[in-house]
């Protein structure tokens, strides 16, 4: 038996609904239809009345979840695509993210953002918005890269008293499989060393962890041993784990699918150089998507985002520095 990243997300929601009567799901087409990606498939049948179809009103979807959370519920909001969450930015960053700080009343909502590129998805169904949300105080921004993390982190997201932006990568939905789901996982504020290495640290998250792993396999043939840190959660950021890795390898390459300016990569690199400058034997490097919208055409898209080959080349250059 095997379970996909998408199924893990479904299973986590099922478990959350089963274990906690405060949980409900709100989003467009999530009930009978089971969601645009089927992340809520059959849940409406299993939990009648707890999976609600929303109008095309992202602002009100999040606003209402905040109100319900104030009353002690634990809503999960599904955005149909991460890209549409731009219409709920105000509710997310100003209302949800500040509620506890302003009033001492917690805001335990989880907002699921189907994120990242897929062939042919174009500029408005491909965005990676983790950096937008991570900039604002009060939000937890999760970016699971594995089936296991998709499962345990989503459960943690629902459990946490703060608003969580859960960036699940669409490219991984059906491509990533695991044998089974774990009972428990690392807490979200801890990064994970996804591969041990000696020569170079690659920091990545979400789908890019797999590009980094593929690059590491190629580099192994050249006897370059890459260590990979999977951030898991980009806010708060586990700088300690990154620093510990860089302390071993003395070289840092950051890979992220979001746009370069002020994204996860620049936050990681800045955290490392401000706290661990002396650990580095070479300039830290980053690979991002290009600074344009995400293109539709598959060839353009492939050149727009970081690829295994680009990572390999950058890592090799850094190794040889």
């Amino acid at each position, binding site marked *: 038996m095997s379970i996909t990243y998408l199924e893990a997300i479904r299973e986590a929601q099922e478990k959350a609904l089963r274990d906690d009567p405060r949980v409900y799901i709100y989003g467009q087409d999530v009930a009978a239809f089971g969601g645009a990606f089927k992340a809520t498939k059959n849940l409406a049948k299993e939990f009648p009345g707890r999976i609600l179809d929303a109008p095309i009103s992202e602002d009100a979807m999040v*606003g209402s979840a905040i*109100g319900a959370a*104030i009353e002690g519920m634990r809503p999960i909001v599904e955005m149909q695509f991460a890209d549409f969450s731009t219409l709920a930015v105000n509710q997310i960053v100003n209302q949800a993210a500040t509620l506890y700080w302003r009033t001492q009343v917690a805001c335990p909502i989880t907002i699921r953002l189907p994120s990242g590129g897929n062939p042919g998805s174009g500029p408005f169904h491909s965005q990676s918005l983790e950096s937008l949300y991570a900039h604002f105080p009060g939000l937890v921004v999760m970016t699971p890269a594995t089936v296991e993390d998709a499962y345990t982190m989503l459960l943690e997201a629902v459990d946490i008293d*703060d608003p969580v932006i859960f960036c699940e990568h669409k490219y991984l939905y059906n491509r990533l499989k695991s044998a089974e789901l774990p009972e428990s996982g690392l807490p979200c504020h801890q990064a994970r060393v996804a591969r041990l290495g000696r020569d170079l640290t690659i920091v990545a998250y979400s789908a890019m962890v797999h590009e980094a792993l593929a690059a590491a396999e190629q580099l192994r043939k050249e006897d370059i041993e890459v260590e990979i840190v999977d951030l898991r959660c980009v806010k708060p950021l586990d700088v300690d784990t990154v620093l510990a890795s860089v302390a071993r390898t003395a070289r840092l390459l950051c890979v992220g699918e979001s746009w370069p300016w002020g994204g996860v990569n620049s936050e990681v690199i800045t955290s490392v150089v401000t706290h661990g400058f002396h650990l580095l034997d070479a300039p830290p490097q980053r690979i991002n998507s290009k600074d344009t919208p995400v293109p539709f055409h598959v060839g353009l898209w492939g050149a727009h985002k970081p690829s295994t080959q680009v990572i390999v080349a950058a890592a090799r250059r850094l190794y040889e520095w």
Partner: protein
Amino acid sequence: MLDTLNPPKRNVVPPVSREQYIKAFSWMLLARTVEEKLASLWRAGKIAGGVYLGKGQEAVSAAIGILLKSGDIFGPLIRDQAGRLAFGESLVDIFRTHFGSRTGPTRGRDGNVHRGKPRDGYHAMISHLGSLVSVVAGALVARRFKGDTSAIGATTIGDGGTSTGSFHEAINMAAVEKLPLVVVVVNNQYAYSTPNHRQFACNHLVDRAIGYGVEGYTMDGTDLRSCLEVVAYATERARSGHGPQMVVGSCLRLSGHGEHDDGFYVDKNLFHTALGRDCLKVAENYLQEQEWADEALVETWRRNAKQQVEEAVAKAQREPLADPSDETWCPYATQRLAQALLVR
């Protein structure tokens, strides 16, 4: 007086009693007294930032506050001092918030009208107009989940706030969910300096109700009796399962937008129309007409309100202000997260 748009006029609301009227009037008077004090503190430089008054809107607001019951939900906006008090706000919290006291509900982190006790059903607005409507709606969704079938929620919005996308999404969503939500639109003719005709083009904002499939009513916002009647009707309809209610009260903002603003742009003619009446005076006259209270009695109430307010100010002033050294500067509620970050 009961000018309903959708349903036929029905006599579900008992006539306004002396007791209720006086109760509402007292909150209006107290609110006015609070705000006069706030304005003078502001002029004296004792309050940082802005001070926003509900002068001229006390009748609408008091009516809402009074007709909500314990266990209901209230999402007040900037001009709802009367409603806040009627809903149970403590006087001293008002001044604590304006001063930035450590002891206030926001502990100095947010100020003036941005206060509330959300867990008690008393929501704390953010500045972004329209964004509170869906929050109150969501609280009602939660009540439904929890099996609470008796509570309702009310929130207010200005004429300007009706132009926000948030307002539209929220009321539509509440209508789809048939939530017991009362949205009171207070049309005080201006949004900051912007008059109605630059804000919307319909004849009357209550014409929006039908487009959402909610029940809509109008009321004279300067007349406490009209407000008590119509809000009683709307809250009763919401409570008895008729879904969202939209009530539009008309009046005139009798202050500047904030105390920094002299409102020079307001059409002076409006002050001489029915809209420009001071609801507090109208209510006082009505009390005397009905022989429910004479001038002397009102004067006693007024003095009493003043004294309460002075005591509250004095108490707040004796209390410590917010202090940066108390702050952990951590925005998270989750204990293990906050701890992990502090250790780092």
